[in-house]
């Protein structure tokens, strides 16, 4: 039982990492209907900026705030300069642009900061709690808490604020939105900016655990995608739950299903996701889109 609890905790900790990045993916999808493959690398780059600021002597929270501001402007700038020119083109074109961005950010970070591993200070205490023999890392609890908080903020933002609704309207059906008086081009840029902020938050959160290097987000992004897809790309709550499920599935399957062992645990976790999607293509919490053509 204790072993089960410990694995559950470990799985949830990993899942919280996926969840925080999945939120950024959901955010940009909700506000632009684009899947941004560069999301992970943008988050990594922001995290390096935060590291640089802290390394230069800035206090953690000040560096964090400044990084978020820079990430926001960075996100908006990318949308205005690189995405705008191709926004009328097919979705595939935009996807390719984001893949290009992925490579650019990766190599840029490597060029500036090198590929050596760097440690990143944690905003949370590095200690552990022991609950009847089960060890819980305070850092993981912190990541978990922030992921939930972000999720709640996003859910409220998209459902109850005028700006959030305007952004969703823009993403869903641009021309009517524009006729309603929504400044649609700025809504898209805003979506990129906000997604960059959420990504930067995720990067700063997970860097103390996965360490900082230009490739830190590559594996993560894959599972964040899996989590977001499983939960449903249209629901922040679904993305978080999806991320957590992927994390827990990985930890449990490797340990308990002996004939699979650790060799195939990732494969099986992915197979389960595919299976879910076969029966519910929009993800566990996604809603089937009804659209007038």
């Amino acid at each position, binding site marked *: 039982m204790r072993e089960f609890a*410990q694995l559950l905790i470990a799985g949830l900790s990993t899942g919280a990492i996926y969840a925080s990045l999945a939120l950024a993916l959901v955010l940009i999808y909700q506000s632009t209907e684009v899947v941004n493959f560069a999301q992970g690398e943008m988050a990594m780059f922001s995290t390096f900026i935060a590291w640089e600021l802290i390394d230069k002597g800035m206090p953690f929270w000040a560096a964090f705030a400044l990084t978020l501001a820079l990430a926001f402007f960075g996100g908006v700038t990318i949308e205005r300069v690189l995405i705008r020119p191709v926004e009328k083109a097919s979705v595939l074109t935009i996807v390719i642009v984001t893949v290009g961005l992925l490579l650019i950010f990766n190599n840029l970070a490597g060029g500036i900061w090198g*590929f050596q*591993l*760097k440690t990143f200070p944690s905003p949370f205490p590095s200690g552990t709690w022991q609950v009847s023999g089960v060890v819980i890392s305070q850092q993981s609890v912190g990541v978990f808490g922030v992921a939930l908080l972000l999720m709640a903020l996003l859910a409220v933002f998209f459902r109850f604020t005028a700006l959030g609704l305007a952004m969703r309207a823009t993403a869903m059906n641009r021309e009517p939105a524009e006729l309603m008086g929504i400044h649609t081009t700025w809504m898209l840029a805003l979506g990129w900016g906000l997604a960059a902020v959420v990504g930067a938050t995720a990067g700063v959160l997970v860097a103390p655990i996965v360490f900082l*290097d*230009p*490739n830190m987000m590559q*594996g993560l992004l894959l599972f964040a995608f899996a989590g977001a897809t499983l939960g449903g790309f249209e629901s922040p709550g679904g993305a978080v739950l999806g991320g957590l499920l992927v994390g827990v599935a990985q930890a449990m399957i490797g340990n308990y299903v002996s004939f699979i062992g*650790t*060799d195939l645990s990732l494969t099986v976790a992915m197979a389960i996701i595919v299976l879910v999607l076969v029966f519910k293509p929009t993800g566990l919490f996604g809603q089937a889109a009804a659209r007038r053509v």
Partner: protein
Amino acid sequence: MKGYRWLTVPMVLAGVLLAAACGSSSKSTTPTQAPGGATAPAASPSPSVAAAAQCNKAANQTEGVTATEISIGNTDAYSGPASAYAVIAKAEDAYFKWVNDQGGINGRKIKFTSLDDSYSPPKTVEQTRALVEQDHVFADFNPLGTPPNTAIRQYLNDRGVPQIFVATGAATWALDHPKYPCTIGWQPNYQSEAIIYAKYLLASKPNAKIAVLYQNDDYGKDYLKGLQTGLGASASQMIVKEESYETSEPDVSPHVTTLKNTGADVFIVVATPKFAAQAMKAAAQLNWKPLIIDNSVSVDLNTMKAAGAGADGVISAAYLKDPSDPAWASDATVVQYKDILAKYAPGADPNNVFNFYGFAVADTLVQAIKQAGQNLTREGLMKAADNMNYSSPYTLPGITITTSDAQKDWAPIEQMQLEKYNVAKGSWERFGQVLEGAVR
């Protein structure tokens, strides 16, 4: 630096694209010698019936060699996720420039052409073909990485071009030498290192219960195999759990939890830097205090620092002098290394072990070329590399570079010395005798 095979790029999507998108080659455009136009006196290699397989398939045994020059090729990752290793080729370039300024080898200067392969095997094949067929290099020296080297092995052996002192720790270079006589490794292979750990455990902790965390690929499995070989009959009894991880996982802590639950008192970490740091850190966080053995792939000070308190008392193994270690500050070789680096590669970090590795392996090549004699041929160079007995000034005292066709020993370095990490001092301290880890 020690091991290399670690890079398995987990990016499903970008991995494909990286191969296509990255990598400008830094190819030099110096006029190359026409094939067959060798100016050096040919050594008239007699097709002798040798006991061991020879690297004698080259139609032109002296291609790339003139009276004044030896053309040496190399591939390394100047772009892409493995670019940290590009330091090695740059250090080698600096070392050869110094050798040339000293008058070269037997009157010949080395022309070193190093191309970018982004650590991507298809790219390595392409660049290697360019080196062999356009630049007409005499030998391919110290190409980086197990997958890239595996991809070019057949090609180079078919053409009889030496693939000499490859920068990877796989055991196959030594074990499959009879099949691929033009290919030889250099650094201690992963199996050798694991055998050394096994010897240490058998001697100092014969009742150990060993838990292993390993990367789920050839690199991880090579260590596992070495460990089983080294422990021999006791292996099944001593190893209580072997747990693998994938490079795409963000955090290996769940595996450490599983391993802790086995009650093991020795924890062997066969992981690349990031995962090794996570594993050591996680053990400390879980209040698990086994004897930790960390593979030499992940012993740089950044990694140890990242592991925090979990790094204290961790054991690993080394074979080269450490230029950042104060114990070697006044060592003649280390002092000279720093001088040469400052002059020929200004801006390079002398404490980066990759630089020292580059010098050490380039020095061994120079030794092999000297040994091959004035009438340099491809077959002759490989014969020299296959029969070395060289006390390199770069390796730790007592560690020699030995190979022998007669002994069927084609693993140049098979000795290492154990070392223990001290968190308070932030440095490694060597202890005990030099240990042998021969793999046959």
